[in-house]
């Protein structure tokens, strides 16, 4: 099975790691024999799929062959990170203490994470645990799934509907997170499957510097301080297992950035006593988390730096719960000129220059009406024309979503999401304005038959429906080839029922 997966270059990725959870979903494999094909930006589809940035579960990112269109796809949303039973075992707390429904954090869990995975009870130092304790956990999600995509080009039909189904597994996440010492925490999370194992997270964090919760320094590879963490996403299907705005790229883009991808760099963050008020400032490599100073499309990263800034404030709304709003901005750049090795072809990693900018700015909220939770999210994206093949103007777009959860109790919840991407301006004026637009609707439920302090199990069932115009669906469902024409609407649907477990 492993070989089969590897050979077919399945692009499943359940990445999701955020700091703490680990999950794995694996991809149900797959489905499409997505043969690796070169993209316009010179990087193989397989490389894109399995490459550096992390993504949510069962998700593989695929770029259009001809247009390098927006994006990438997910097979079966995989995930990395999520709920980390290692913490539950360390502190004897049930999953529900830190999670509204794992892997999503509640206010208590957010504070625990912000403190460097410490409760602050003077027992956080590992010296207080039995030497046999290891801060490790794993997560994966075996199950059954069905995928359907319309208007697919096949050997016999230019507008075929492709349906695939079967039992599958998601990626595996090996979550190793905890404290090295009091006020020194770490994260180390390999994730993947078969030959596609990547190091999703690897960092050391110095907590409470100067005896202040407002100064915490993290160095390494980590998830951006996203209030709406994709590593803790509660949806896992190919179509719905990721936030579109976290990975969308316009038609022709040579960029590789995704808000949901873990990045390499350093971050200063701080929070007040109850973590209601938070901020973070990160300086990051301009290569979307690729190790070895490599950059977009294997072209080599640049010498510049990206910046990510976040701030959020929560409010005690009495009987309603704790409400939180946040803003963020990612200001990045990508090189457009490189230094080559003697063969004149091979780019020397990290030598990129002539940087061109891009940005993602927006806001996010997390509102409770007692057991009902609403999560609005908005991002405005912009890419310099130099980062888009054939462009004569900058490309801009908006993505927005609303996700709702209803918690019947700590062991049963229902969810739904409407997620949109709308282009505002194409880089190439000749490109239809709607090309790349995408709508995705997802509903599902998670039932946790056990809720205690040693492990987690969830029966996850989800249905997701998507509509994409003129590009390969970000989910990667179908034949991973471009739509027959820029105006073709490709509809995808995913059904997933699986056992999501971690220990």
């Amino acid at each position: 099975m492993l070989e089969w997966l590897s050979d077919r270059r399945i692009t499943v990725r359940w990445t999701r790691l955020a700091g703490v959870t680990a999950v794995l979903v694996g991809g149900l494999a797959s489905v499409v024999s997505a043969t690796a094909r070169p993209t316009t930006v010179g990087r193989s589809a397989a490389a894109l799929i399995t490459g550096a940035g992390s993504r949510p579960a069962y998700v593989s990112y695929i770029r259009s062959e001809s247009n390098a269109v927006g994006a990438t796809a997910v097979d079966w949303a995989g995930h990395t990170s999520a709920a980390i039973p290692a913490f539950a075992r360390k502190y004897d707390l049930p999953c529900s203490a830190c999670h509204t429904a794992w892997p999503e954090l509640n206010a208590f869990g957010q504070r625990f994470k912000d403190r460097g995975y410490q409760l602050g009870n003077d027992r956080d130092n590992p010296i207080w645990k039995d030497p046999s304790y290891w801060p490790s956990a794993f997560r994966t999600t075996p199950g059954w799934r069905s995928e359907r995509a319309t208007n697919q080009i096949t050997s016999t039909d230019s507008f075929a509907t492709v349906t695939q189904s079967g039992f599958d597994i998601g990626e595996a996440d090996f979550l190793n997170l905890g404290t090295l010492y009091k006020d020194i925490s770490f994260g180390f999370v390999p994730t993947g499957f078969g030959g596609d194992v990547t190091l999703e997270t690897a960092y050391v964090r110095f907590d409470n510097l100067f005896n202040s919760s407002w100064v915490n320094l993290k160095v390494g590879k980590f998830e951006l301080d996203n209030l709406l963490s994709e590593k803790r996403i509660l949806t896992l299907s190919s179509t719905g297992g990721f936030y579109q705005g976290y990975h969308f790229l316009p038609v022709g883009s040579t960029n590789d950035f995704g808000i949901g991808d873990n990045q390499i760099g350093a971050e200063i963050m701080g929070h007040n006593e109850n973590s209601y008020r938070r901020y973070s400032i990160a300086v990051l490599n301009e290569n979307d988390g690729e190790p070895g100073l490599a950059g977009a499309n294997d072209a080599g990263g640049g010498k510049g730096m990206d910046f990510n800034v976040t701030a959020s404030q929560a409010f005690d709304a009495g009987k309603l719960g704790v409400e939180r709003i946040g803003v963020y901005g990612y200001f990045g750049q990508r090189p457009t000129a490189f230094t080559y090795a003697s063969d004149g072809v091979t780019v020397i990693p990290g030598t990129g220059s002539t940087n061109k900018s891009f940005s993602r700015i927006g806001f996010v909220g997390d509102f409770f009406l007692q057991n009902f939770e609403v999560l609005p999210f908005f991002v405005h994206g912009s890419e310099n024309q130099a980062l888009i093949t054939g462009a004569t103007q900058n490309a801009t777009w908006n993505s927005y979503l609303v996700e709702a959860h209803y918690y019947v109790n700590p062991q049963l919840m229902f969810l739904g999401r409407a997620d949109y991407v709308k282009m505002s301006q194409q880089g190439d004026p000749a490109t239809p304005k709607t090309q790349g637009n995408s709508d995705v609707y997802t509903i599902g439920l998670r039932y946790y038959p056990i809720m205690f302090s040693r492990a987690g199990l969830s029966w996850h069932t989800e249905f997701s429906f998507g509509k994409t115009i003129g590009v390969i669906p970000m989910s990667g469902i179908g034949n991973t080839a471009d739509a027959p024409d820029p105006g073709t609407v490709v509809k995808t649907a995913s059904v997933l029922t699986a056992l999501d477990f971690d220990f």
Partner: protein
Amino acid sequence: MRMHSTWAAALALLVATAPALAAQMTKVGNVTGDAARGAQQYRRYCIGCHGPAGDGQGENAPWVDPKPRDFTEATFKCRSTPTGTLPTDQDLFNTISRGFVTTAMPSWLPLSVQNRVDLVAYIKTFSGKWKTEKVGTPIVVPPETPVTMESILHGRQLFQKMECWKCHGPAGHGDGPSASTLTDSKDNPIRPYNFSTGTRFMCGTTNADLYKIFMNGLDGSPMPSFVDNLPPADAWDLVHFLRTLQPIKTPEAALWKAWLPSHASTLVPIGPDAEGQ
């Protein structure tokens, strides 16, 4: 006439049960607790250790040390009220918000105030004492006396005289000769507080919190109440001395460190050799 008798009986019943109803009501500041909502919070956050019945027999209890509180006994360590009495709602709220340092009980400060008050209301449903007994009257903490070397040295003498060292150890390390024999009200072994490693106390962080700890005692533990043995001025002296044992910067510690090098030889070591001095 019959109607009047019925109303009279109802009124009598209402009057008779009024104290119990009042005792069940939970209020912290302007926030009123609701036990039904608290039950939902309890299931999410507390049940693993304190158990479905609130008896401290949750599934994690065998692995937790010190053992979780048994709410059915309505015996609580951190109170502003005298030993043997029920704590105030504010006391329970403060405990939930603060947690217990060096134990498995975390600070639940990130929960909304309403959530925490609801938890207080629910915790009070586990014992009938909340219906039959009155909440204790919080002790009055008099104004703190000035921090002086005389106060600290007198507190040191009291530490010897009141035999605090027998449990907490001569240097406050929690290693006194009686330390290994101590048990709580459930006969579980319990360790005295180690001042040399703790930056916070079990029931707070301020001098007033420390004052209340040994004046009210920690019910359910071997730590007794000294309210009948220590005049308030002496209690403040003891507070000032205990502060010098902690590994944190305090006015008391600063004074002590400045004074000690030139006077160390004049101090009689705390412990059995100093008995009767």
